[in-house]
């Protein structure tokens, strides 16, 4: 008798996995596979693109090994997603710190990248029938390039806040970083990104 976990919450799936149900973990993994990979990929940036899969695997191994330490919200813990993304954040940041001595930090100018890559990626818009979708895809591509120019801390806070909808309080609790520090990081990150994305934001206008 197979049990469907499609409607179970992340916390229930994790509890089932801790109790020995592998299917629950597979459901949990399938649910967050792409999101977690994208989060790690964005934090590591293009310069560490080759290590994304390795870090991604490391994150899941840590989640598996720490499965019994996870505390659901009804027992005073955090949401599984918050908990897992905190692990992903810490793993990615650890890797960035470990590799920082090997990375040559060069000043990255705004809106600068490989022109050929840019034109190739822009050509991929042609399959979009909607001009709006093409615009937002181009804006998303531009935003990724802008995010890479941010310092690691600001980048992580912005992604956790905008991509994973983590509130500053949740981030402060999970990352053990003071609230005001996170607030400052987020404010600086958004200032830089808005400046970097001004061509796109100008067309949209002030609408939020």
């Amino acid at each position: 008798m197979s049990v469907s976990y499609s409607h179970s919450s992340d916390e229930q799936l994790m509890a089932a996995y801790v109790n020995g149900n592998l299917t629950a973990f597979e459901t949990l993994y399938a649910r967050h596979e792409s999101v977690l990979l994208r989060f790690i990929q964005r934090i590591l940036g293009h310069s560490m693109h080759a290590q994304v899969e390795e870090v991604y695997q490391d994150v899941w191994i840590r989640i598996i090994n720490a499965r019994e330490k996870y505390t659901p919200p009804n027992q005073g813990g955090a949401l599984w997603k918050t908990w897992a993304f905190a692990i992903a954040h810490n793993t990615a940041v650890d890797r960035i710190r470990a590799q920082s001595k090997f990375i040559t930090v060069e000043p990255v100018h705004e809106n600068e990248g490989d022109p050929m890559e840019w034109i190739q990626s822009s050509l991929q818009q042609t399959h979009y029938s909607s001009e709006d979708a093409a615009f937002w895809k181009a804006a998303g591509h531009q935003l990724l390039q802008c995010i890479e120019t941010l310092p690691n801390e600001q980048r992580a806070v912005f992604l956790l806040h905008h991509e994973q909808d983590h509130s500053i309080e949740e981030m402060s609790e999970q990352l053990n970083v003071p609230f005001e520090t996170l607030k400052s990081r987020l404010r600086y990150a958004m200032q830089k990104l808005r400046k970097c994305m001004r061509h796109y934001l100008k067309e949209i206008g002030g609408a939020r």
Partner: protein
Amino acid sequence: MTTPHHWQDARLKKALDNAPDLQATPSATTRNKILKAAADALVKPKSNSSSWWKNILRQLIEKSHFSRNAGFATAIVIICVGVIWTLNNPMNAIDSLVTHNTPPTPVATPPLPRSAPPATETIATQTQLTGHISASSTQAHEIVPDTLQQASTVTPSTTREEQAHLQPVQSPIQQLPTEPTSSTIERQRNHANTPLLQTPPPAPTTNAEPAVQIDEKETRRSPSFEVANSSSGDHTDYVAHDLYSETSIASDSDSGSAPVPQTARGSAAQFEIHTPSTAQTQTHTQTRIDSAETFRQTRNHNSGKLQQNTGNTASTLSTRNHLPGSQILSGNTSTSIPAPVAAQEQMITAVTENTANEVPETYAISNSSTQAEEITPPSAMFDVTPSTQSNQQPQNNTDYKTLIHAIYAWNQLYLSSSYGTTIIDRKSATELQNRLVNIISHAQKSPHTINNNQSAWLLTLYQNLTFLGTITIQGQNWTFSTTHPCMLDCKIPESSSLGGTLNQQDAQALEQSINNLIP
């Protein structure tokens, strides 16, 4: 409980949600590894029963990168030391040490009595012999008085036969005065020790033979011996005896010539490569080398590793004052191209059509700044280009005209849409690519200045320039087609054609965009 703080920017969030990496998925291998790890974690029992030393060992092996690194470094050091030890043949040093530390006087064992003497006599005899063997005079001096005393006490109890054996040693002692002064004792000591210390063994002993052999071997292996042989040019002896230069010996023997160091032979080989029998062959060989290198470089460019030096090189073509297109006039708009900043390697001294018969000052196709001398530009693949070093007049004017046409055609790209067939060489194609990158880079910084059709046309032109042999741009709709020769083992058949077409409206719009983009 306070409300959680959210300062999300909806525009940035929407852009983030539409980013091109939205559908990123890990590889199947990674996915399988993770799921397998999850399954193993459930199956694997907790092993708390393992002993403490196993846990430590496991931690060292699994977790501690430092231990692994240290072990690896230690192994490398051991290997290096071993190699150096082997190459330097440490036996030489050991042998020399042995030679130097060996006493100048080998052990001269005096004839021993055939029958075992009594214990007291044995002590006396051994003490005496020890005093003789020792090379240190101080030790000998310290031993001698004891020996004298012991010998004097032992003498009454010895047999005549034993006394006869001991007689040569004891006789000078027995002649000592009853109460000798210190000076006389010293003299007697010296007298007693001198013959034993200075007498070398006339017959070779087992200890002496290796020393002689080692000395000979040492001499053969010594660097001075190598130098002497080398300078004398006697290869036969060099081959026969020198153990350290087998490589040089082999090469010298093969060539049958005077000894040449390895580096010199390498230079000679290169010289042979670059010195064919005819000048035509030389030019052809060099052309092929340059073409292959350029092909690889441009292929790397095409694979996304393009270096953004557009600001330096892109303006090289049109900055020549001789060119009619250097000052571009489009309607009432005057467009001047910025001068190149650092285009030393790709410098092309262009000449106008009117001065096509003149020899340019420099026409280098050098791809590397490390080249000490100018290389004859490739001529086999494209047109002949003269070298100023040879001081020869060009064979024909096609080379200049080709280059000029290439540059002029590109400059005309801004002006009109009527083009003719232009055959350009590899370097000009690279220059055109750089110009394209410059245009695209400007367009990138000013979004929505070129549409997808124009982007596709520019990209196709860029890609085709990588494999360029000839280019034809014609018509109002900017149709271009290229043929590209097969320079290496490329899969594209020779003279195949690729191209792109831009409609007239987009062509004109692109022209206007380019004029606006490039200040």
